[in-house]
């Protein structure tokens, strides 16, 4: 049964929707068999909302997030994010879309190991074409906000898991994205650090007016969102 998030989909609200998905299907071919992960998924998310996505392991949460963020190509259905039709976007523009519109936070440490915390955060802005001084200024400001300014010159290998994740949050925000996609951002952290990272994500989202879609197994984290959706047997339903 198709599920609507953040109110009913209608012609009048369409422009305010940052995610508009209908009939989205996705299958993986593995060892000669096709594995249908998403089938006929419907999803409308209004700009500025906060949505949590839960579901059992292997249900396709990460797959959905990758499709929404332009990391993978959808195989069937309609997929419009921030006004861009991702099924028809050429790959060059897809890269630009990821850079300008999306802020990713992944579960596993996802920093470039050879660059310092500051360089990691600034890199996303540099890729987006921001000048070096401006990129560094933005990165410093964000590192200050996540409480890591004094660690700016450290390589990721010398930061704790929680600190690395806070750097990742700073990097996700450096281009002021319209949509933050977080895939179990606290999955590897203890409870205290998990709280702190989520607090930061929420605070920055609020500050920048971004939409937040967070995948989590943790029901207490899910309960912080205004809307919680559940992925089950390839379909979305209200939790």
């Amino acid at each position, binding site marked *: 049964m198709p599920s609507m998030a953040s109110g009913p989909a209608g012609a009048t609200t369409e422009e305010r929707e940052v995610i508009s998905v209908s009939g989205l299907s996705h299958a993986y071919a593995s060892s000669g068999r096709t594995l249908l992960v998403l089938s006929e998924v419907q999803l409308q998310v209004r700009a500025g909302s906060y949505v949590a996505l839960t579901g059992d392991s292997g249900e396709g949460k*990460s797959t959905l*997030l*990758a499709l929404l*963020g*332009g*990391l*993978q190509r959808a195989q069937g259905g309609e997929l419009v994010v921030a006004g861009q039709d991702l099924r028809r976007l050429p*790959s*060059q523009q897809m*890269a*630009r879309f*990821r*850079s*300008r519109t999306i802020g*990713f936070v*992944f*579960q*596993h440490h*996802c*920093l*470039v*190991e*050879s*660059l310092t915390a500051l*360089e990691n955060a600034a*890199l*996303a802005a*540099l*890729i*987006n074409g921001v000048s*070096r001084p401006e990129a560094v200024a933005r990165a410093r400001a964000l590192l200050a906000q996540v409480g890591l300014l004094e660690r700016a010159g450290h390589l990721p290998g010398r930061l704790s898991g929680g600190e690395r994740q806070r750097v990742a949050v700073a*990097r996700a925000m450096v281009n002021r994205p319209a949509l933050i996609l977080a*895939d179990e951002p606290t999955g590897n952290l203890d409870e205290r650090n998990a709280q702190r990272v989520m607090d930061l994500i929420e605070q920055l989202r609020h500050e920048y007016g971004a939409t937040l879609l967070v995948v989590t197994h943790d029901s207490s984290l899910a309960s912080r969102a205004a809307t919680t959706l559940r992925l089950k047997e390839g379909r979305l339903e209200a939790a």
Partner: protein
Amino acid sequence: MSWGATFRLALSSLLRRPARSGLTVLGVAVGSALLVALGSIASVAESRAVEHFGKGLPVGAIKVADDAPASWQLQTDDFQLAGHKDLNQDAIRQIRRLPNVRAVVPIQAAPVLVVPPSGDSFGATMAGTDLGLGADSPVSVLAGRLPAAASLTEVAVTQSYLDHTHPGRPPGAAVGEAIQVAEPRVEAPGSEVPFRPRWFRAKVVGVVSQDVAGADLLVPLQQTTAAREWELSGAAAPPGLRGEGSIRSPYSALIVIADSIDTMHGVRVGIDQIGFATSAPEHVLAAVLRYLHVVDIVLVGIGAIAVLLAGLNIANALLTAVRERRREIGVLKAIGARDRDVVRWFLLEATLLGFLGGVAGTLAGLLLAQALALKVSEYLTQQGIPIEALRLQDLPYAVVLLGVGGSWLLALLAAAVPALRAAKMPASEAMAEL
């Protein structure tokens, strides 16, 4: 992504694995050092061979005798004489007009009696030539200097003089000696004495490397001209006294210098057609250069194989890096890097490896070549064959360029497959489980 940002990424990625990067650079350095060392030794050997077979004469020098050539003259390097023929101003003029002739140096030989400081006189040949030729001069100085251009009191001596007066001593030993020289004139039959000498005193100012027309003494042309006038004022010489330098010919020999080794044969053909016997090391040189060319190919081949191995090593190191950085590549793409940014990242990394290795290797290769050449020249000098050590300015720039540019190019080639593989990595790798 700007070049600057990509460069920092490439550099920091290399520094993150210092041992692997260092070993890869070392591999490139060893390869290019070998290539450069072997390449420079091969090319210097070639120019040394040309010098050696020129017997101290400049490259492209041809000796011309005052004789007509035999019909098979051009098939050999040595003189093939077919009867005396005067070498006069007219002949010189004709030879000067031949294409590719850089200089024509006339030589006059005269038989003399030399009295060195020891008093043990001996019969010798004195050669006069134009000593004001500078770079085109067919003689090279081993010690001291050449006599002043028109001096009648200065002489230079050759190895055969040293063999008579200072056997086994270094060339410098003869410089500064005062000698006496007698030019004999044959007196008319029935005179009190059969010969009358014309004496002059001279100072040995230098030692020259080769025997110009088989001479013991080298003097300005004015000296031999005076000697000839003295001789010609006498009666006809009895046969056997004067050896090859005939008194009848205004010049006893010429040294003709062609533009290059390649034009030497053509000039020799021209002189043959004018009608003089010639001698030049063209056949032996061609044979030696052919051998050296084979040696070149083998040496450069060995160097190239070493560089090739270094290239494979780069490819291997970068493929490992791509495998290691799957997630990082995915993350970069997730935050907006394009395929070409990723390609650039790996190509810049390869450039750093190749360029650093190439520069270090080329420097090491030059030092190695020089050290080897020094050892060889030390050994040869001990064996009584004085040969100059390798000079850096002799080195062909092509070899240096090949060392640095070749390593770099090779690194880029080696990086092609890893870079494309990295670029094809899907962005979703960023989300992959560990």
